[in-house]
């Protein structure tokens, strides 16, 4: 579904990603982990071209999205993204946050979009918050709304960029529960996270990045109990 082929990314002279190749198959849940500055967020952001790769290719369903003539806007509609800091639209109510893109971009009828939005709010457990503004929500609620907002576009792939890193500890669980539920529906997901327990439980595969390189790629059981690389061993010792 997402195929990354020898991807490199530099900001000026600094090389943040070096020659990364990997694949996320349909229905896969992939957790991307690694120390800060390892390039994991950049890798994720390259997948919907929030960052433009310096070298290499990214294929979504066989279409090269890095090609000059690619319809980036269309590709992005297939890929939902959830950010560390939520980025809800503060001047819109929760419901409007969910209906805005479907109505304006997908040209869905307003009533249909609203119905769908209420359904999604129910799924993330926030039916009662439809008409409030984001500023009235807790961090965990904001993130759940942000997930629902992405889902409202009916994406085929969901990207999560440290979705729980900005949350108070007691709110992490409610967001992870929603993500777990989503994983069970067979959604294709790529998740940058520091939640090792969650990665181990939910992910089908772990990508371990360090210094812009893909150091190790393995199923969670193997990665957490028998990491192959010295660097991953050190990292896990500190984390667990």
């Amino acid at each position, binding site marked *: 579904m997402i195929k990354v082929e020898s991807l490199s990314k530099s900001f000026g002279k600094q090389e943040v990603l070096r020659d990364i190749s990997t694949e996320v198959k349909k229905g896969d849940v992939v957790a991307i982990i690694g120390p800060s500055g390892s390039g994991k967020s950049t890798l994720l952001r390259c997948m919907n071209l929030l960052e433009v790769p310096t070298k290499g290719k990214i294929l979504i369903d066989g279409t090269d999205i890095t090609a000059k003539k690619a319809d980036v806007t*269309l590709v992005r509609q297939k890929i939902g*993204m959830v950010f560390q800091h939520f*980025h809800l639209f*503060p*001047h819109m109510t929760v419901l409007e946050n969910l209906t*805005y*893109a479907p109505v304006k971009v997908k040209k869905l009828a307003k009533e249909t979009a609203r119905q769908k939005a209420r359904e999604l709010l129910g799924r993330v457990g926030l039916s009662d918050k439809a008409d409030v503004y984001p500023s009235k929500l807790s961090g965990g609620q904001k993130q759940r709304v942000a997930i629902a907002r992405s889902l409202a*576009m009916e994406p085929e792939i969901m990207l999560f960029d440290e979705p729980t890193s900005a949350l108070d500890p007691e709110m992490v669980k409610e967001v992870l529960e929603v993500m777990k539920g989503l994983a069970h529906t067979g959604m294709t997901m790529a998740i940058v996270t520091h939640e090792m327990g969650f990665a181990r439980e939910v992910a089908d595969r772990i990508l371990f990045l360090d210094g812009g390189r893909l150091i190790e790629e393995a199923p969670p059981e193997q990665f957490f109990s028998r990491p192959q690389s010295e660097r991953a061993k050190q990292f896990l010792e500190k984390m667990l």
Partner: protein
Amino acid sequence: MHLDFSQIDFRYIAEGIYTTLEYTVLAAIFGFLWGAVLSLFKISSIALLKWFAVFYTSIFRGTPLILMISLVYFATPQLTQYDITALQAGVITLGLNSAAYISETIRAGILAVDKGQREAAIALGVPYRQMMLDIIFPQAFKNILPAMVNESIALLKDSALVSTIGALDILRRATIVGANTFLYFEPLIFAALLYYIMVMLLTLAARSLERRLRRSD
């Protein structure tokens, strides 16, 4: 000291409010729209547009407004044979001038909107134009509202400059009354009072608008 308010035609002066507001409102609308476009030029990645907007602003910063008004009003017929009216010349010049300053304000307002808002919109597949109109501008507008009020107050007061090209605004009417009666203090102080009241009303209106926009905070 000689003061005689009985000879002054206050009604005649007050009727200038309509003209003053006409110039101000039209110039404000024109200035805001053009200023918004210029601000987009300024944040654009196209060097030519950026350069144009910066150069444009420097022209209005670097010349007296009263000179520009005279230039547009008196030189247009000479250059194009088109007999421009005072209203056209006044609105165009005040609007062009206001746009130059507003574009700076809007630019700063746009840049002050969290960059995550932009990314969230992009990630949802929202095209640039819609993103600017529906996501970025409304938030930028809230940030820059106080500065915009100042700008429209400046515009209201600058509109008195059109009295020099024959528009019958508040100031011009006051000077006409002065010339007819040889009494200057009375009509001019009345005109000053009118401007003052209008500015105060504008300030109050802006405050309540600001309160309404803060609803989502």
